[in-house]
């Protein structure tokens, strides 16, 4: 039945229509068959009527024949034979007619055949003989024959048969009529039934169809109404796969989808609801946070001007309030890196006064997050809190600013619930906020200190300012003085800046070049100015070079124009007090006249020394000739005296040699060999040569060399000369005691100290000690003798080696000479060394 229900709706409607039409057709068929039956019955009745008619005719024919014959027989008139003949002709026709009418009934045909046969027999056996007898004038035989009733028997048989045929026919007709009536009745009944059935069926089908359509539609409608009123997910039973079924399926899908949507929506709704709840929660949280922030903000703002202890107290109080902790402490990291309790609530006195806190405080110092600790069953072992509260949870919050932990706050609370995560988070934020405040306050404290210092400084500065003002006036006056001095000096002075521009120049500087003092010249222009005037124009280059360099140097410039002039140049870098290089100072001195005198002096000395040597040579020569016995024998006394003369001559010659040495050294003509010299070894050798002469005078002679001395770059002979001169003097001028020689070195200098316990030099003589021919004139020195050139030569040699020589002395105590020589460190730096070599 399912397939039926699955049929499409239009097909169903068509089916019902078709069914109704079919039933109508059936009814029509029934009525038609009834009519047909009636028609057949009528035909049968007509046949029966015809049969009856033909039977009656037949009987009539038979009667006519019998009567005719009988008449003939009786009357013997031929006229009576005519009916016979007509009957004879007609009865066959009637029989044939009957046969045709009842051709479908064999029993009747059989009867008819028997009738035909009997009639034949009757004709042949009765009628014809009788006729024949009449014709043969045997009329009595013919009437006897008629009276014999032979014909009557046959005739009876025929009549019986015909009666039979008629009866059968009549019965058949009656049967047919009854049958027709029945059939008609049946037909009517059927037609009626069919019509009724058609009406009923169509009504039923229509109803069923309507129902099959309306019921699911109603269901759908109900469902739709249900859906419309919010009954999502309502499912319509899908009875069939027809349009309504499909509609129902679609509806179900729609309903399903609606339900899904509704489910989703409700889920969303729930989520929204949850969100709303969360939002509400967050709002509340935010409000709380905002409240906290506002409080923190107020707190922070109120903190700015406060001091660290009260800030710490407030911070701790705030943290306690925020975390719901009952006890706590705030430890600040001090400058020594120790954590020290600054504020506390509920701590024992001992714990609060501890010089520094360690343990978890220390751990929290480097922890990234607050450190939560739980002491189950209130088993906090350390007697930190004197409160009776059983502290079960501790939280250590590092307070950090800019990656640096400033402090650690410890918070304690009773159980059983630990610090909520949210609170910890909030405390972290607070700690961060507080850290900024704390840092600010720490900074502020430092700043306050600095400010106090600054105020002190300001007062000091004011004082200083007044002093500076004074000083400035003084400097101004000094500068004016300086300027006046600068202008009044005969030397040309020029201060050249680092960029090579003259900053401070006196008039004399320009006048020395024959230039106008008003001229503002650059160094290049100055070079161009002096170049043509120089005796050696090439010297201009080195002159300008010197002006621009920042080293100390001197030289001499010879001018040919406008008149012969010799200028001594001295250049030295000028530094400010802070060591900053300001530039170079030039001092030009007109040494034309001095140079001339010097030249004359040198020439004079040279001449004198030559002129002295010549007679000396003669004296020595003659004396030696006498001593050698070249001019005859001499007495011992003569020999002794001549020997004295000879030695004095040699001494005089040495004096002259020294004199020449001094002169040459001063003129820069001394030749100093350049090589690495082991000065310590030289010193020891020289000391050894003096040991005998010192011992002769009963003097000690100690030499100490401290460590390994670096070499000196120079002339070993000349250095020997220096040591020798100083030792010679020491031995010469010491009566008792001894000589102590010490050699030492620092990074770049060797220092040689020659200390004696001799007669000493009076202070007024000391400055001149290194001058040529300077001799301290007293009884002793006269006894000792000397050229008065030794120290001058010594100084000259030392200075040519880039060294220094100094003397300290006290009369009666002794004299100390200190010689320094530059150390040679393997780097060739002949700059300080030796002009003669260049």
């Amino acid at each position, binding site marked *: 039945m399912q397939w039926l229900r699955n049929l499409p709706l239009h097909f169903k409607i068509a089916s019902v229509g078709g069914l109704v039409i079919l039933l109508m057709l059936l009814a029509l068929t029934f009525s038609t068959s009834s009519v047909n039956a009636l028609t057949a019955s009528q035909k049968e009745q007509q046949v029966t009527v015809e049969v009856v008619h033909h039977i009656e005719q037949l009987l009539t024919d038979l009667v006519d024949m019998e009567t005719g014959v009988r008449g003939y027989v009786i009357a013997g008139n031929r006229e009576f034979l005519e009916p016979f003949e007509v009957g004879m002709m007609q009865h066959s026709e009637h029989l044939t007619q009957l046969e045709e009418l009842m051709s479908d009934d064999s029993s009747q045909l059989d009867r008819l055949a028997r009738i035909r046969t009997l009639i034949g027999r009757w004709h042949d056996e009765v009628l014809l003989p009788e006729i024949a007898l009449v014709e043969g004038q045997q009329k009595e035989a013919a009437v006897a024959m008629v009276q014999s009733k032979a014909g009557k028997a046959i005739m009876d048989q025929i009549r019986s048969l015909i009666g039979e045929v008629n009866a059968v026919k009549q019965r058949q007709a009656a049967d047919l009529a009854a049958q027709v009536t029945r059939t008609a009745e049946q037909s009517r009944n059927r037609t009626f039934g069919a019509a009724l059935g058609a009406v009923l069926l169509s009504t039923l089908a229509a109803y069923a169809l309507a129902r099959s359509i309306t019921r699911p539609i109603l269901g759908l409608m109900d469902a739709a109404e249900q859906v419309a009123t919010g009954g999502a997910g309502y499912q319509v039973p899908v009875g069939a796969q027809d349009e309504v079924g499909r509609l129902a399926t679609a509806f179900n899908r729609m309903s399903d989808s609606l339900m899904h949507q509704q489910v989703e929506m409700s889920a969303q709704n729930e989520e929204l609801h949850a969100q709303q709840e969360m939002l509400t929660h967050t709002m509340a949280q935010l409000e709380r946070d905002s409240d906290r922030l506002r409080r923190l903000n107020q707190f922070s703002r109120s903190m700015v001007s406060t001091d660290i202890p009260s800030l710490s107290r407030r911070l701790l109080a705030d943290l306690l309030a925020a975390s719901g902790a009952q006890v706590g402490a705030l430890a600040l990291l001090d400058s020594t890196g120790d954590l020290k309790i600054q504020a506390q609530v509920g701590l024992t006195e001992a714990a609060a006064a501890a010089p520094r806190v360690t343990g978890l405080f220390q751990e929290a110092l480097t922890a990234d997050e607050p450190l939560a600790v739980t002491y189950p069953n209130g088993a906090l072992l350390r007697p930190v809190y004197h409160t009776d509260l059983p502290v079960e949870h501790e939280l250590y919050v590092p307070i950090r600013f800019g990656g640096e932990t400033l402090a650690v706050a410890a918070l304690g609370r009773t159980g059983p619930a630990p610090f909520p995560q949210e609170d910890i988070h909030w405390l972290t934020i607070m700690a961060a906020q507080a850290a900024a405040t704390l840092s600010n306050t720490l900074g502020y404290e430092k700043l306050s200190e600095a400010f106090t210092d600054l105020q002190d400084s300001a007062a000091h500065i004011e004082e200083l300012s007044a002093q500076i003002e004074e000083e400035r006036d003084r400097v101004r006056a000094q500068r004016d003085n300086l300027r006046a001095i600068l202008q009044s000096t005969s030397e040309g002075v020029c201060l050249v800046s680092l960029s090579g521009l003259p900053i401070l120049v006196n008039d004399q500087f320009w006048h020395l070049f024959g230039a106008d003092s008003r001229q503002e010249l650059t160094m290049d222009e100055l070079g161009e100015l002096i170049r043509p005037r120089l005796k050696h124009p090439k010297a201009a280059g080195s002159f300008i070079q010197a002006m621009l360099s920042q080293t100390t140097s001197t030289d001499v410039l010879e001018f040919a124009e406008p008149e012969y002039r010799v200028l001594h140049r001295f250049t030295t870098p000028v530094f400010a007090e802070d060591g900053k290089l300001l530039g170079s100072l030039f001092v030009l001195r007109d040494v034309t006249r001095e140079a001339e005198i010097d030249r004359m002096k040198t020439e004079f000395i040279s001449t004198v*020394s*030559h002129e002295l*040597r*010549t*007679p*000396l*040579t*003669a*004296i*020595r*020569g*003659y004396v*030696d*000739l006498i001593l*050698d016995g*070249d*001019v005859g024998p001499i007495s011992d006394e003569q020999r002794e005296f001549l020997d004295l003369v000879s030695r004095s*001559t*040699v001494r005089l*010659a040495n004096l002259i*040699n020294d004199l*020449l040495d001094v002169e*040459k050294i001063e003129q820069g*003509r001394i*030749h100093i060999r350049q090589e690495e010299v082991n000065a310590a070894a030289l010193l020891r050798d020289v000391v050894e040569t003096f040991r005998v002469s010192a011992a002769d005078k009963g003097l000690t002679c100690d030499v100490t060399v401290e460590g390994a001395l670096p070499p000196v770059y120079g002339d070993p002979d000349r250095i020997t000369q220096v040591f020798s001169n100083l030792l010679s003097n020491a031995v010469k001028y010491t009566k008792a005691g001894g000589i102590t020689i010490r050699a030492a070195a620092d990074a770049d200098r060797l220092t040689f100290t020659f200390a004696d316990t001799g007669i000493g030099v009076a202070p007024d003589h000391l400055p001149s000690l290194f001058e040529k021919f300077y001799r301290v004139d007293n009884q002793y020195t006269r006894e000792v003798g000397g050229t008065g050139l030794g120290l001058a030569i010594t100084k000259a040699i030392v200075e040519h080696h880039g060294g220094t020589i100094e003397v300290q002395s006290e009369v009666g105590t002794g004299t100390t000479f200190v010689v320094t020589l530059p150390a040679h460190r393997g780097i060739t730096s002949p700059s300080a060394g030796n002009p003669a070599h260049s």
Partner: protein
Amino acid sequence: MPKVLIVEDDPQIARIVQIKLTNNGFTVIHAPDGGAGLAAVREHRPDLVLLDVMMPVMDGYQVLRSLRAEPEFAKLPVIMLTAKGQERDILHGFKDGATDYVVKPFSPAEVVARVQRALR
């Protein structure tokens, strides 16, 4: 007998050298200045010349250079007599072709020793 020429402006020194050398078996000729010295060399063809440096008119170096300029005197031993004892002067003399040096004031015996050595 080796012949020595002494060119010396100071007669005393010349005399001392002359006495000492003669006593030691030398023939000594004296020239009082540079010019005379050159002439004496050409005339007497000495075996050795003692040449003073500081002389008027023509100093010892000039005489030495003149002598060395003449091929026949290129190898003539010349000992300089000078008051200047410094290395630089000695170097100067050697550069000009001096054989040896004697520094004033000298011992006559030293001169004899140097002359003998120069002639060996």
